C-alpha cells in the first residue's frame, strides 16, 4: 500500500514529485513540496482508491507513513 499511496502523491502533485523521492523522504509532504491544492487532490484520490473517509483532524496526515497508517486503520 505504501508504494501505491506514494504513486497517488506523485499523481496529485501533477508529477512534480517523483515516487522514489516520496518513498525516500524523511520529512513531511508539505516540506517535500506538496502544495495545499495537491494535498487536497491527494485526499480525494485516496478516498476513491481505498474506499475510505480520510479525517483531516485525524493527525499525522502530513507524512506518507501517517497517511498509510490512517488508511489502514480506516479499512479494518
Amino acid at each position, binding site marked *: 500500500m505504501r508504494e501505491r499511496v506514494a504513486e497517488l502523491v506523485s499523481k496529485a502533485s501533477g508529477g512534480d514529485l517523483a515516487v522514489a523521492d516520496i518513498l525516500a523522504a524523511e*520529512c*513531511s*509532504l*508539505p*516540506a517535500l513540496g506538496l*502544495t*495545499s*491544492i*495537491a*494535498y*487536497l*487532490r491527494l*485526499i*480525494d484520490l485516496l478516498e476513491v482508491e481505498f474506499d475510505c473517509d480520510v479525517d*483531516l*483532524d485525524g*493527525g499525522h*496526515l*502530513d*507524512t506518507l507513513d501517517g497517511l498509510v497508517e490512517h488508511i489502514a486503520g480506516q479499512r479494518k
Partner: protein
Amino acid sequence: MTASPPAQVTGLTALPPRTVEFRGARGGQAALTWGQQGIWRSTRWLDDGDPYFNLAWTLPVTGAAGLDAVLRAVGRLVERHETLRTAFARAGEGAGEGDGEGGEDGGEDTVQRVSREGRLTVGVYEAAARPMSAAKELAAELAATGFDYAAELPIRCAVVCQRGRPRVLALALSHLALDGWSLNMVAAEWPRLVAGEDLPEPGRQPLDQAAFERSDSPPGGQALWHWRTGLASAPRSMFDFPMREPEEPRFVRHGMDSPAAAVAAEALAARHGVTTSSVLTVASAALLAAVTGHRTAALQLIVSNRHHPGMEAMAGPAAQDGLCVIELGAGATFADALRHGHRRTMATYRNGHYDPALVHAAWEAEAWDRGADIDLDAFFNDVRQAGRWQGLPPVDPGDAAALATLRARTRTFFVGAYSKVKARIFFATGPTPSTCEFYVLVDTAFLPGDVAGRMLTGLEELLVRAVSEEVPLDRVAKVAGLDPVPRPTGWTAIGHDWVDLPATEELLRRACGTDLAAVVVEDASDGAGAGAGDGAAARLTGYLVASPGLDTPEAVHSAVMRAAAGRTDVLAPHHYVLCAAPPAGPAGWPACPRLIEGGGRAPSSAMTVLGR
C-alpha cells in the same frame, strides 16, 4: 452586448480604436454557479457602479506580433472562454433590462447569459516611452468605472504600442468573470494565442459547472456538514465588544513587504509539517483572537476550489468562502496552534464547494438557536500562486542576527480607505513570490485604523519570535505589541461569546415593550445554554411578565431576535420564563410563580407548560 469605449489617458497618444468580432462555439443561459453567486452577492452589497471588484491587469506582448495578431488573440480569448462573453441579468429579462437592483439578491433570481457572438471595441495607443507603466495606468483607468453586468462585456481592453509595435495589452476585467486562478490561466495562454497557436478547448465552462451543481447528485454534502459543525463551534462574532466612532472613510487597509516574515514562516512550516498558508492563517487568527479576547477564532477563508476534478480547467469564478474555526486554548503555544490550525485550514479548503442557499439556511438556523446573528465577517485570503513563495532571500532562519538584518528591509505602507466593505477585518497575502506581501483591512467602527498597521508588524514579530522560542498563546498580544480591546463592567463571557448584559436586558425590555423584565446569568446544569468553552455552564435566562401576543417563549424569542438583528453586543436569552406578575424586587424573579417557560427556539423544544 456592447463594450464601453476605451478611456483617454494622458501620456498616451490615442489611435483609432479597433473592433474585434467574435463568434464562440455556443451561447446559452443557466443559473449562476455557486462561485458566481459568491461574487454576485458581494457586488450587490456595494452600490451599483462601484468598481471595487474590478481587476486592472496587463499582459505583455512578446515577439514581433503585429496589431492584427494581437487583436486576433483577443478575439480567440473571448471565444474560448465563455465567461468573457457572459452577462448577468434577472431571469426573464433581456440583456440591458436587468439593473441588478436589490441589495439582498444572493443570485437565486439571476442568470448567467452567454452571448455566442458579438463585438469588442479595443483601444489602440502609442506610448512614447515605458509602455508597461503606461499600460498599467491605462488598465487602472479602464477599471475605474463599474461594469454594467447586464449589458456590458466583462472585459475592456486596449493595446499599447511603441513605434507602432504592440507591447502590452491593458485590461479591466469584472471579478464576476475571472478569479485569480483564471487570470493565471489566461496569462499562460496569452503568448500562445498571440503566436497563433491553436489551443485545445477548455474542458469546462461556467454553463457546464452550473449544470453539474444542479445535477441529481450534486456535490457539497460534506461541505454542508463542515459548515454546520463550524457554525456551532464558532463565536457568534469576533467583534463582540463595544463599537467606536468610525473614522472617515470607515474601512482602512495597510500593507507590508517583509522578506523576514516569509523566511520565518517557511521555517515554521518546515518544522511543524504544515504549509506557509496555514502559518499565516493561524498567525492571523491568533492576532485577531488576542486583540478581541477570544480563545476560539473563526475566519472565512477564500477557497479557490480548484482541486476538484474539472474545475481546474474552467475560466470563471470558482472561489467560495470556507469557514475555519481554530481553537487557541489557554496553556497552548503558537506551535500547538499551528499543528491544530493546519488541519482546520486543510479541512476548510476541502469543504469550500457548496450550495450557498443551503449554507445560508444552516447559518440562519444556527443564529436562531444561538440567539444572535452569526457574524463571520473576518476573512483570510492567500492569493499566492500555488500557495507558496519562491526565490526568498537565502537567510538561515536560525541565525538571529541575519534575520534581524533582513528585518531592516521590512516596509509597511498605507493602501487605502473605503466607505463600504463587507468585512470587519480582512487578512490577505499579495501575489509577490519573493517576500511576504501581506495586507490587513479593518473596520474602524470596531478597531482603530492604526491597528491594521500594528497587526502587520505584530505578525512579523510573532513569526520571527516563534522561530527561536515557544510563544504561549496567552502572550501573543504582548509579543505582537497589540492592546486587547477593553470591555466595560457588565460584559461577561457566555460560552464562546462575550455579552453586554445590561444591553441584553434593555433589548428584552424594548423587544417586549415592558419594563417588567430581567436577564439573569444562571447555571445551566441541565445541559442547556452555552456550548463548550469559557462560561460553558452559564446560560442567560430572561424573565418577564407575559402579555397578549407575548405569552409564549417562542413569541418572545421571535421578538428578541428581530430586535437584535445586526448587533454583536447582545445575545438572546437561552431560556425564557414568563410570569403572571413581577416580583417585589429585582432579585425576586427566579422565585416568581411561572406561567410558562422554555427556550423558545422551536415548538417542539423542551417547553414546560405550568398552570395553564
